[in-house]
């Protein structure tokens, strides 16, 4: 409950901060719409030549693009801005103030910055998903919806833990913002199902940069092609990675000694 209240507070602060620049809203809509248009036009081009891509039909790949926008939107909404601020605070020492607050510091740094414009991407992702689902028709049942929800939750936790681990390295390496940018550029590979990539790249996109769990696996669930072992594997990986990130964070905070020392 406290968690939700905190999130609501930071969300309100984010809205208040940006409400001063209403014209930005239109600009961000145009940006997101153009990006989505590019993705869908690319799909149209490919499916003009083939009926399936690596076993995926066109509406299934549209659903994948929806998941890509949805997850990318959530990353841009809270995860990325929060983690960037974290590395920044480690460098200039303002993390001191956060650590003295009577709330779990990991929780605070995870939600303390909200980039509300990214809600547009979340919304667009949901719309695209909705359209793809409608075109997939009757074939998405309750079981599939449930496994999609579980898969996307696991994917979200994995991505969050991954970012937290990367940002936590700032306690030792100090300048890591560039590592964070690299994630952004690799994330783009997730606009396609990872199954089409050659083995070494698939491995990298599954375990080094967990794009597979964040995007391909949830989309597979919607397409009804997610096997139970993969789903359980994703869930187990999510729990393990979250635990590891938490542990790493604790060690990092203990290592942290303020900027002036």
């Amino acid at each position, binding site marked *: 409950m406290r968690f939700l209240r905190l999130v609501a507070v930071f969300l309100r602060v984010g809205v208040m901060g940006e409400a001063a620049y209403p014209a930005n809203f239109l600009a961000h809509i145009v940006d997101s719409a153009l990006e989505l248009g590019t993705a869908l*036009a690319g799909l149209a081009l490919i499916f003009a030549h*083939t009926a399936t*891509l690596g076993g995926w039909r066109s509406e299934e790949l549209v659903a994948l693009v929806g998941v890509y926008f949805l997850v990318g939107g959530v990353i841009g909404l809270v995860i990325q801005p929060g983690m960037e601020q974290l590395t920044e605070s480690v460098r200039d020492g303002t993390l001191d103030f956060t650590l003295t607050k009577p709330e779990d510091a990991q929780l605070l740094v995870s939600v303390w910055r909200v980039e509300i414009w990214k809600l547009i991407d979340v919304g667009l992702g949901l719309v695209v998903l909705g359209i793809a689902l409608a075109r997939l028709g009757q074939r998405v049942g309750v079981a599939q919806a449930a496994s999609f929800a579980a898969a996307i939750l696991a994917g979200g936790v994995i991505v969050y833990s991954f970012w937290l681990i990367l940002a936590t390295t700032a306690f030792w390496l100090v300048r890591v913002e560039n590592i964070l940018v690299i994630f952004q550029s690799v994330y783009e590979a997730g606009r396609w199902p990872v199954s089409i990539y050659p083995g070494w790249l698939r491995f990298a996109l599954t375990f080094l940069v967990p794009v597979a769990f964040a995007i391909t696996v949830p989309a597979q669930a919607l397409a009804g092609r997610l096997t139970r072992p993969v789903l359980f594997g994703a869930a187990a990986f999510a729990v393990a990675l979250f635990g590891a990130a938490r542990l790493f964070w604790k060690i990092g905070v203990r290592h942290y000694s303020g900027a002036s020392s």
Partner: protein
Amino acid sequence: MKALAELYLQEIKTGVASMLQYRATLVIWLIGNVLEPLIYLVVWTTVARSTGGSVGGYGVLDFAAYYIVLMLVNQATFTWVMYEFDYRIREGTFSADLLHPVHPIHADIATNLSSKVVNLPFVVAAAAGLAAVFHPAFRFTPLAVAAFVPALVLAFLVRFLVDWTVALAAFWTTRVTAINQIHYMAVLFFSGQIAPLTVLPRPLQVVANVLPFRWTVGFPVELLLGRLTRAQILTGFAAQAAWLLAGALLVRVAWRVSVRRYSAVGA
């Protein structure tokens, strides 16, 4: 002319020195420039395999060859000047550049060239690695290789002039991201990056022939791969020359009207 040559030499030297300081930024651009062609390489080879071998005249190994060469050509001709201009104008750092006695485009070209000097070994290594993994079907002819060199130089110049003109939009609006996104889309579709141009629907191919982007990436790639007839090669060079003239003119006109609007933010 001699003064300009000295300027370039000096700018390239300082450029290389400063690039070596910001190695992480280089790595980021490099990953992006390798990953994107790699993604499309994988997508199109997958398509070619599922349709029984060939799309728009390209087989599986042809796509591999196309995208490996495209990666090299794209790296050689690509600029980031429109992202830089946005920052320059917003932060007002452009004021100092305006005081220089030479046109600022020369410093930009030199900086861009120096990034290529620094990146070259890594890009060649990436290309060699991809070639080892995907076994591309290269069939280079001496004529194609000889014609490729001037085509690449012209492609670089045309792309730089066009990008620089687009970048000048930053003088007119502080919201250039939408313009940059549209420009990125145009390059993606019409330069041959999202797919070789023969794979595009006919009307888009016609548009691509009229716009400058094809001549900055797709044309040198197809030329080197020996996919163009002699007549097509000549047409391509003519188009490049025409765009070089048009680009130089565009830069001149756009620069003159844009710079008049400049007032450093915060000054």
